[in-house]
């Protein structure tokens, strides 16, 4: 793999750095309102969960979820406008770049934005005393992996899209149910065994399973399995994205 994708990453960075602050605030407003509302509101009724406060329990889930959404938005809506509306990708492949370079740059870029969102969540969670700063730092590489997995999946979906409306199917039929099933709001042991098996196939579950214990200074049991599944989603999703995008654009 060459490093030519960096030129694509830098293109996106140059656009974003002017809008970074409002963009981060916009991305974080939603999860923060949910986290504080549910964490303090429901938390007062629930009390402790798995040995921590409900707020701390939710915090781990929301760090992973915000990361997922940030990567997804970038690899769906923003990538689609660059691919289809602005034809930016077509311009890039006229230079000595391949579509794989473009996708690698876009994937790394979406993961970067996911890292920014996840890191901001970690800062807030740590500032409110729900994670020690050094544990929050330890979660950053996991955030990157979660970001890469959802960026790659998003790019594969992007290649199939015929318009922005298409993305609402992916979000409402895949991401939202996954958020409910992946142990973000409650431990998945609450659910029937069959549903649990289904949940464990999905990537978000593995992100939450690693990030949550990490924030309280513990390594998840079967850590490498979780990381492996996330890595497989990233690699498999990226491979699929290259096939589907090539089919779409290089015909």
């Amino acid at each position, binding site marked *: 793999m060459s490093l030519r994708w960096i030129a694509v990453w830098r293109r996106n960075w140059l656009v974003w750095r002017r809008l970074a602050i409002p963009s981060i605030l916009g991305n974080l407003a939603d999860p923060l309102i949910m986290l504080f509302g549910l964490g303090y509101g429901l938390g007062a009724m629930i009390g402790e969960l798995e040995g921590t406060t409900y707020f701390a329990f939710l915090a781990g889930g929301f760090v992973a979820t915000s990361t997922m959404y940030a990567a997804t938005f970038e690899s769906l809506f923003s990538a689609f406008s660059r691919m289809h509306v602005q034809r930016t990708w077509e311009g890039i492949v006229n230079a*000595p770049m391949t579509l794989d370079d473009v996708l690698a740059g876009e994937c790394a870029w979406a993961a970067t934005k996911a890292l920014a969102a996840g890191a901001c969540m970690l800062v807030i969670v740590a500032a409110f005393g729900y994670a020690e700063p050094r544990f929050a730092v330890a979660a950053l590489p996991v955030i990157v992996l979660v970001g890469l997995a959802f960026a790659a999946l998003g790019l594969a979906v992007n290649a199939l899209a015929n318009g922005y409306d298409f993305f609402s199917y992916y979000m409402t039929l895949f991401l939202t149910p996954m958020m409910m099933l992946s142990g973000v709001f409650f431990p998945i042991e609450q659910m029937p065994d069959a549903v649990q098996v289904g949940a464990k196939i999905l990537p978000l579950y593995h992100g939450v399973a690693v990030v949550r214990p990490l924030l309280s200074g513990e390594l998840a049991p079967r850590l490498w399995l979780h990381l492996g599944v996330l890595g497989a989603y990233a690699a498999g999703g990226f491979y699929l994205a290259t096939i589907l995008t090539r089919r779409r654009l290089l015909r």
Partner: protein
Amino acid sequence: MRAQTGALIAQALRKSFGATEVVSGVNLAVATGECFGLLGPNGAGKTTTLKLCLGLTEPDGGEIHLLGEPVPRRAREARRRVGVVPQFDNLDPDFTVAENLIVYGRYFGLRSAQIAARVPGLLDFAGLAGRERSKINTLSGGMKRRLTLARALVNDPQLVFMDEPTTGLDPQARHLIWERLRRLTQEGKTLVLTTHFMEEAERLCDRLAIMDHGRIIAEGSPRALIAEHIEPHVVEVHGPGFEAWMDVARSLCPRVERAGDTVFCYVDETGPLLANLKGHRELSYLHRQASLEDVFLKLTGRDLRD
């Protein structure tokens, strides 16, 4: 090998999408420093041929050498020395004029300082000096097109592909682009352009090929094509009773065509035809020299292509 010394050589190119063959056995040989035009109605396969030459789509058959590099195998190496002006504007609306050039130059692996040193010259060439900080959406259509051309030159290419470089421009803007393209050929760059403006092809191209239904149906210099395929004079006739008059026309002209309410008479000698028309005051007529457009319409027909 001689076959690989031209700027662009394509032999027996074929490409199908599904069951439709879009390019059916195209041969091209563009010499270094030449301005070569690829003409054809919409859907003739011009854009696909360009994409094949750039290595952006895999041919089903045939061989391509672009600047001596086999394509698609070494398309990336070839594209390093090639510029492309695409059919649709894809300047980056998020950037200023200068940023568009800098960001694009990075795709060629150029360093920012290297590109920054080239920007003033490129903007000068594009007639955009002093506009480096302008946003793209404040530029006119002609300015955008010139910036796209400047962007295609950011790597100082040996060959520039242009897919309909002046479509959608007003005459002033078009003439300015033509002037710039001539300057490029004077600098020794090879130009390959597709167009369906015959005037553009006639003015700019040393040689051209007319393409239809995925095949090249005629090739040569604009002058030679006109001499080879068409009578030197055209008289366009319309007015009441033109249908009855067409029989007269057929007796006086080697070739007569009707399109709607107009009769096109193609002749070597205009004397007898014009004398006859003087006796038909109800008919209006226009006498002109045959042009490349007449060749094009003769070879590709007058049917609409959508």
